[in-house]
């Protein structure tokens, strides 16, 4: 009986796929949009290399040093400087080939070493998401460092300038290096060994503290996708369960009742239909998302079991809403609102750590959406011992309660003549 009803509903869904497709494609599109906005282009999960031009109009060894810093092996993992003249750099910027252009102006070194005010020129390309902003922050760090140097070594600067301009003799150069070395030795006592440090560890309750190791292959897209999937699966379950309202509206449920006296098989079939839809949708979203955004799920078994438990929770929640709210439009609107509310409160849309403190500490931990998304994020993002089985048990328990309550409410509604 339930198989017959389920087959009928799946066939109907197949014939009218638009509502399901929208709910399937929106989270994928949103993941792509948000992911690209925050620059998650690289495959290893880190921010992509920032391509920018350096226009060296000063042509002095100091500018060469800055060029060398940008070219350093560590920096080159994140930065991709290219050296152009001003015109070529601006042309490349206009063609959206660069995130920014850094111009080291003429007489920069001389002015700096004579303690006059100097400034870099940074021209940003707003079309390159957050890269120009990152570059600006890096430049601010460089400027701060150069300011610190100027304050500590200002008395040596004239000699340095003379050396750079080729006027100094070797004796003075040797003195300069010795004095700089002495100062650095003094500084070393202050900074090494460090008096305050930190240990990296992971809290057992699933919240990360300190630095965390990123699981291989899981990236920003994956992080976003898990949350958005958690939220949109609720909408899909809602769409599946609200089909019961459609059956009421089109009188097919009444017709069913003229043939079969017991109505609960119809409700049960609808819950299973919603679960099947959620599972199919999650396979497309999570499986397809992994292919599209090029990351690997590190714990597929846990992921599948969690998703299964979550599918039952989503169907149970929406069955409950459908049972409580007797008016179709209201039920539809409420299902979407509840989906958004518990999705957001559970940290599906924003990382839970960034939620307001009340939500983060007193609401999110009790949200099934949080159990789902945060556990998967934990598992995939450097917390292999995240308590996923406990999360599954909690989801299953809540699902059973919701489905039982919904069945009772439906039975009561039908007894009161909802179909007459």
């Amino acid at each position, binding site marked *: *009986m339930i198989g*017959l009803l389920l087959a*009928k509903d799946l*066939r*109907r869904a197949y*014939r*009218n796929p638009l509502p399901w497709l929208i709910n399937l494609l929106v989270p994928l599109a949103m993941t792509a949009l948000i992911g690209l906005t925050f620059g998650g282009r690289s495959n290893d999960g880190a921010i992509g290399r920032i391509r920018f031009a350096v226009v060296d109009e000063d042509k002095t060894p100091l500018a060469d040093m800055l060029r060398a810093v940008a070219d350093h092996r560590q920096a080159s993992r994140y930065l991709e400087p290219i050296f152009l003249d001003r015109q070529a750099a601006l042309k490349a910027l206009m063609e959206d080939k660069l995130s920014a252009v850094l111009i080291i102006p003429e007489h920069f070194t001389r002015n700096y070493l004579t303690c006059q005010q100097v400034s870099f020129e940074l021209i940003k390309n707003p079309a390159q998401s957050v890269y120009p902003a990152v570059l600006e922050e890096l430049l601010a760090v460089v400027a701060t460092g150069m300011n610190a140097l100027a304050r500590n070594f200002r008395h040596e600067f004239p000699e340095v300038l003379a050396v750079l301009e080729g006027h100094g003799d070797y004796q003075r150069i040797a003195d300069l290096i010795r004095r700089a070395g002495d100062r650095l030795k003094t500084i070393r006592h202050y900074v090494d060994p460090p008096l305050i440090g930190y240990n990296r560890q992971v809290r057992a309750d699933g919240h990360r503290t300190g630095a965390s190791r990123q699981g291989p292959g899981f990236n920003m897209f994956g992080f976003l996708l898990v949350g958005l999937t958690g939220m949109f699966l609720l909408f899909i379950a809602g769409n599946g369960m609200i089909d019961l309202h459609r059956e009421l509206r*089109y*009188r*097919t449920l*009444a*017709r*069913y*009742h*003229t*043939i*079969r*006296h017991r109505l609960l098989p119809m409700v049960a079939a609808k819950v299973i239909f919603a679960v099947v839809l959620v599972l199919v949708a999650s396979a497309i979203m999570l499986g397809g998302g992994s292919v599209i955004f090029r990351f690997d799920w590190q714990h597929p078994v846990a992921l599948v079991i969690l998703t299964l438990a979550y599918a039952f929770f989503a169907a149970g929640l929406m069955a409950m809403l459908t049972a409580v709210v007797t008016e179709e439009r209201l039920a539809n609107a409420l299902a979407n609102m509840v989906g958004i509310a518990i999705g957001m409160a559970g940290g599906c849309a924003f990382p839970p750590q960034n939620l307001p403190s009340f939500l983060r500490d007193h609401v999110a931990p009790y949200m099934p959406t949080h159990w789902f998304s945060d556990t998967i994020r934990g598992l995939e993002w450097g917390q292999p011992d995240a308590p996923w089985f406990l999360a599954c048990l909690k989801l299953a328990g809540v699902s059973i309660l919701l489905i039982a309550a919904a069945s009772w409410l439906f039975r009561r509604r039908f007894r009161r*003549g909802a*179909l*007459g």
Partner: protein
Amino acid sequence: MLELKGLCKRFGRIQAADSISFQVCPGQIYGLLGPNGAGKTTIISMVCGLLRPDSGQILIDGSDFWSDPQRAKRIMGVVPQEVAVYEELTGLENLEFWGRLAGLTARQARSRAIELLDTLALMDRARDAVKTYSGGMKRAINLACALLHRPRLLLLDEPTVGIDPQARLKILDAIRSLRSSGTAILYTTHYLEEAEILCDRIGILDHGRLLAEGTLKQLQDRLGGDRLFVLEADFKDARPDSWPGFLQRFRIIQQADHQLIVAAAGDRDPAECLKDLLGLPFPVQNVTFKRPSLNDLFLQLTGRDLRQ
């Protein structure tokens, strides 16, 4: 096959069914005639178990419906007023689904579905989605969905509402052929003509009460057999009860501003009645002699026109 005994149903302050009693025998079409809101659908809903009556009894094939609802439902087929089918599915898929639900095997459901599609001349559209069908075709599928398991009792709730005359004739033909195969049919309608040409017995319903019940002939006889006179004149200020001897010879069925409908009292000769009417102390412009219709009966019983 179906017997209703003192069936009552109340929704708040509205008495939707008030002590309804009648029976439908095998091979008989029983028409429930009444305006919208008369309680026809409420009665059908109680008979098929969608609503539980407040009091009274429903006997299906001699057994109380509520003693074994599933047994009763196996015997009956229900055609709801709305087209209650899945519009995304094809006609064939719909019939197969409802057939399987009614207890047929997949093979039985398919062969019966094809047979019904053939009977209703829908075979060429069998594999099209129902949403692409015309109103008449949807109504035909709606009817066919109730016939798959060959019910012995068929409940039809206004099955011809909103369709063209050709499609209506097709459906009425199908219903007649079911009657001739021995199916007991309870048929609700607010179309007078349908009730007159189709039903063996008719119950006239208004505000939840069964006002009159019987064959068409019996109902017509209540108005004075086949003698009904329609007088046309300006009756705005007329007082027929003050006309000497008028109420002894005629019964007033309806009085409107420009029309007075009367039935002859007793077994009087129509020519004599006509002579009486033309001799009234009132300037009558025209007198028509006609057979009483169900609408006339409804007028007499309720003071309202069924067609309004």
